[in-house]
């Protein structure tokens, strides 16, 4: 049944690419946005948000969701022209650079996590280099490959994660920490929202750039759904961790989500006793898909020829691999993310919100000016 369903997703992706090229279906927007956001959301945040906001981290999560939903609803449709077009282009360019930096951090975190939990003796380069090479090769195979990959694998990723979470429900024994504390202090919650900023950076850009490739303009409902899917997945992972470990034990771990999911046991089944391997698969897939989608978004941002694409991909992938290897430990990459990338992300998100608000205001004024005098 599952395979049929997956097959239909894939077929749907192929059809939309083959018949209505270059138009993607609106379902593609959901999967591509999920791929773009989820890769950045797998590491760092639950720990550091809980470190500042404690049990009230879920309020921070909800606030971050509200922020990104507002942002998404403000994105103009159809695409603006003139000076606003250039302004949006600059915003997208900045977002892609910041996202690229986040990706390097995530690559480092992924490799360090795999080494800590699963591949103790495998050198880090042997984990990073093949992954980046595959990402580079896949993106350059054909212009649609990255989109098609996202449309095939993201549903699988969601099914896989849902499967693990379903099994993890047995371990969720503490429901009290899922509700906020009786002392709701605003500052720690805002700090938590600030830490979540790095997850929000790719959202606006992904929606703006993918919207250009869609056969029809995405309605606000589609855009909001595209945002809500990854946030709900992150919230469910958070609930699984908080409910099984509690807010104090969580802060003693570097990768609480992996820790919690690695200890889901299936003692009664004969052939699948530890599901840690599903976590390895999902996490690697999540990061690889997001890297792929981000490179592809770069090509949409600035269309280029085949050779230029190859050169740019090699450069980007090379920088990622070197950066991920140079950051010697996950502590270094976490510090880089929290102290340099995250403040930039916050600044960017505020700038993006202001720009979108101004654009909306401007187009409203323009619309009024174009109306016949009698209708005013």
């Amino acid at each position, binding site marked *: 049944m599952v395979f049929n369903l997956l097959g239909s997703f894939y077929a749907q992706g192929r059809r939309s690419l083959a018949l209505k090229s270059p138009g993607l279906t609106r379902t593609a927007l959901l999967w591509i946005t999920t791929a773009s956001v989820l890769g950045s959301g797998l590491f760092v945040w639950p720990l550091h948000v809980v470190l500042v906001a404690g049990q009230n981290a879920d309020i921070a999560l909800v606030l971050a969701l509200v922020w990104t939903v507002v942002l998404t609803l403000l994105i103009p449709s159809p695409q603006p022209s003139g000076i606003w077009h250039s302004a949006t282009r600059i915003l997208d360019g900045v977002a892609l650079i910041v996202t690229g930096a986040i990706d390097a951090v995530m690559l480092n975190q992924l490799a360090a996590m795999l080494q800590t939990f699963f591949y103790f003796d495998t050198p880090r380069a042997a984990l990073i280099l*093949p992954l980046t090479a595959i990402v580079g090769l896949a993106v350059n195979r054909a212009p649609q490959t990255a989109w098609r990959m996202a449309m095939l694998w993201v549903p699988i990723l969601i099914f896989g994660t849902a499967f693990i979470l379903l099994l993890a429900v047995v371990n969720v024994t503490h429901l009290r920490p899922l509700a906020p*504390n009786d*002392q709701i202090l605003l500052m720690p919650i805002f700090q938590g929202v600030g830490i979540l900023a790095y997850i929000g950076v790719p959202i606006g850009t992904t929606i703006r750039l993918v919207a250009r490739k869609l056969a029809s303009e995405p309605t606000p409902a589609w855009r909001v759904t595209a945002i809500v899917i990854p946030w709900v997945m992150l919230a469910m992972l958070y609930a699984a961790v908080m409910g099984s470990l509690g807010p104090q034990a969580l802060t003693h771990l570097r990768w609480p989500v992996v820790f919690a999911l690695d200890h889901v*046991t299936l003692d009664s089944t004969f052939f699948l006793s*530890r599901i840690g391997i599903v976590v390895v698969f999902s996490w690697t897939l999540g990061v690889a898909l997001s890297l792929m989608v981000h490179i592809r978004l770069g090509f949409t941002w600035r269309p280029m020829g085949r050779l230029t694409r190859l050169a740019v991909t090699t450069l980007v992938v090379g920088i990622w691999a070197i950066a991920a290897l140079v950051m010697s430990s996950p502590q270094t990459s976490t510090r880089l993310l929290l102290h340099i990338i995250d403040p930039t992300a916050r600044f960017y998100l505020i700038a993006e919100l202001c720009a979108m608000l101004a654009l909306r205001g401007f187009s409203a004024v323009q619309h009024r000016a174009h109306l016949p005098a009698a209708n005013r």
Partner: protein
Amino acid sequence: MRKKRGKLRAIGLCLLALSLSGCWDQHPVEMRAAVAAIGIDPAPGVGQANYTFTFPNVTTTAASLATTPQSQEFYAIHVTAPNLLSALLSAQRRESRTLYLGQVRIVCLSSALPTRIWRSTLMTMADSGRFVLTTWIVGAPNAAAVVSLIPPVEVVPEVGLYNALTCRCQGIRWPGRGWRVWSEIVTPGITPSVVWVHPHQGQFTLTRLLVLRSPYPVSWSPEATIGWSYLTGRLLRDNISVTLDHTPLVVGLIRGRSHLAIHHRQSTIAASVHLDYSGVILGNVSGSDAIGLDRQVERQVANRIQSYVQAAWLEAQRTDTDPMGWHRSAIWSDAAWASDRGWSHWSLTCWVHFTLREEGVLR
């Protein structure tokens, strides 16, 4: 040109496949010595402990099982070391194959070991990353005896105690999964607890809770342990005997749930626990007023549960421990509550509601 590119692709794919499989960590099973259980006992030297590692004998194949004597299914290595990691190194020096810690089923610590050794062992296991933390942590008077115990019904590489704790066939859902004990160690407001294993004549018995308070762990009485399981909802099935008009009756298959509510009042905490349990009379209540007699049975069982709960509450106060995690719940609902205030500020109200599901059937 096209042929050349195809060859290059094939070579590239092979290289990728090789490196992606994580060859560095893949060793055939005959080159590995998978640790099945670890036992830790106190040793005479200062800061030293005796470590026992048991391994399944991999030369025992399916074909040779019938001929292998039971004593050869597992073998053990004994070392004395200051901590777990040194013990592992010492054990490795006596073993020709690589020690593998991904299959550890039981880690048994002696109840005579100070609690700080328990803590440091668990922390080492969690921090090193090489241990699988779904292992069971248990306590025993003599850890080496427990890990070398092979019940006659188990066949290598099954560890009997692990199966007993995992099968959900015990009357109590015992605590002690490695990751959970670790998380209780680092969480204020709960005294971590594990099951206390009593080895006796080649068998083991699980009746008591071993609570890891400082400086030494303390074992709860069997009565208090049952009370604890009623309070925490960890009771899977229980039998209680009652007498009705001088006729002994057994109420069996008792199961249910508990609900805890915590109310903060200035400097005190009022905990109220609602126990909602039900069971089956194994036998028939005969007489003119069967319903009235049923009510009598229910009342007697409820009183008995109350006495178990009373025993647990007194044991918690006597030993100044909280394996229920109520202090933790208090902290989670009120961030200002300090965990180290003991039981002196607590009051407990317990409502027991017991109903008979049905009567046994005379065949």
